[in-house]
């Protein structure tokens, strides 16, 4: 019976873990006050590259994961410099624009299977890989917040100008955060490809970026656990609301609106690493 339970809910359980990773990837940049929304794009790079490496070159999974983390990180290095000057909404739009350009590339390129996407990717990413990575990343980030680096991030988030004056190397932190965010998102993409065995360009565009943003904003951005909580809730919600059919989306939106109106700092308002 338990086997059947696992089978029935496997996709859902995997999705929660993967979305948690994506939420963390967004947290990394939000913690510095950067509204960089490239996670969906980096996820796409990770998903496609890992899928191609597994199906065409039959590389072992750990190696594929490494590539899935490194390739997006490289992309982050490339776009990190030009976007460093941007802030707020401009940064958000630049990263979304980047994601859409990539999506159009996936739709048109032969190697990515175009609109049909890639299917038949063997199932390699199980519960252990996904949740193991999620736990490690959360723990790592939580610990990081208590160190000097964490305080520097908090300072940048509060007031970038003052932080710079205090000697914090803004450019370096921003780039590092972007690279880390890209690596996490890339891993999430590889897990997605290797658990649902089928990827298509539409999963990595504007809609996905907005969904990831909603995880962080629902859960609160004070600590790494906030966005993960948001991811858990928003991933499970459509399934729980299934019986409601048409009203499902209405309720989804209503919940988000109410939470933000009455809890503008998100569900988990606790801020990690706050010096008392």
């Amino acid at each position: 019976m338990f086997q059947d339970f696992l089978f029935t809910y496997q996709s859902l359980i995997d999705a929660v873990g993967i979305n948690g990773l994506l939420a963390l990837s967004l947290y990394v940049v939000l913690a510095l006050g950067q509204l960089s929304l490239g996670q969906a794009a980096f996820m796409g790079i990770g998903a496609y590259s890992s899928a191609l490496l597994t199906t065409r070159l039959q590389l072992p999974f750990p190696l594929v994961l490494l590539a899935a983390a490194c390739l997006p990180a490289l992309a982050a290095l490339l776009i990190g410099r030009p976007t460093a000057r941007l802030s707020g909404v401009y940064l958000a739009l630049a990263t979304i624009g980047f994601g859409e350009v990539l999506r159009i590339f996936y739709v048109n390129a032969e190697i990515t299977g175009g609109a049909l996407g890639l299917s038949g990717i063997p199932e390699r990413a199980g519960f252990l890989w996904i949740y193991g990575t999620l736990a490690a990343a959360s723990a790592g980030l939580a610990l990081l917040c208590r160190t000097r680096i964490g305080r520097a991030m908090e300072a940048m988030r509060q007031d970038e100008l003052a932080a710079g004056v205090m000697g914090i190397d803004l450019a370096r932190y921003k780039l590092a955060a972007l690279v880390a965010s890209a690596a996490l998102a890339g891993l999430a993409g590889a897990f997605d490809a290797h658990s649902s065995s089928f990827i298509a360009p539409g999963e990595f565009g504007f809609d996905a970026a907005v969904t990831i943003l909603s995880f962080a904003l629902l859960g609160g951005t004070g600590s790494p656990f906030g966005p993960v909580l948001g991811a858990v809730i928003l991933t499970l919600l459509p399934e729980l609301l299934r019986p409601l059919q048409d009203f499902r989306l209405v309720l989804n939106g209503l919940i988000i609106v109410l939470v933000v109106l009455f809890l503008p700092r998100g569900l988990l308002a606790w801020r990690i690493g706050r010096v008392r």
Partner: protein
Amino acid sequence: MLGQQLVNGFVAGATYALFALGFTLMFGVLRVINLTYGVYFSAGAFLALALVRNVGFGLGLALPAAAIATGGLAVLIDALLLTRLRRAKAPELASLMVTLGATLLLYAVLTAWLGTEIRRFPPGLVGGAVEFGGIRISGAQALIIVTTFVLVAGLLTLLRRTRLGLAIRALAENPEAAQLMGVDAGRTVAFVSFASGALGAAAGVLIGLEYNAIQPYMGEAMMLKGFAVIIIGGLGDIGGALIAGLLLGMAEALTAGYLASTLKDAVGFVLLVLTLWVRPDGLFGRASARRA
């Protein structure tokens, strides 16, 4: 073919500019990423459609009626959602989020109520066409071009030559100082909300008329192009929105006509990314990209 492609592009560009007008006003002045703008676009189209089909209005009545009603809706939504957050000085992300939630909610309500089939205005609502030298411009297309230019002229006059316009500009520049100088923030903000809702609705009606594709999510599809136009034109810059819109429209038409139609969608994003890279303040550099 070149002539016709340029016309196609010009018309498409006018539609982008029309969409962007209300968007840039709201964005530039209220400094909030209000994602519900797309909903006003859809709502306007549906309202006008209902007025035309069920009440028998002609377009000349239906369009302004829909615009005014949607403007009212915009004021209502702003009052319900954003004023509260403004007073509580909530983080900027909060207004982004609440409008995101409101957008999801409103689209879902529209879809649940109206269904997802595509509707169109009764054929022949705006008839006629002009042909010269192998180029053809339909009545609806001419209406879009004229309306866009008229609205741009009207807005520019409002902003530059009236007290209200002065108040809006002052509020956009420095809200605290403006209020100290006697600007009634509440009323001005309400007016800007109304105006942007009305403009969005007008755009929805005209674009729905031209492309025959009225469905609840029609606003969504325009949003990304809208973002591109207002960034390229500069936030809050009305003239910039017009030029950026026309530019984008023509670039897309020429790309599809002479390069490859697969690249058409990419044009907007490439221009957006380029602008943000090279000149984030927009074509005319009147907005400030550093302030969030």
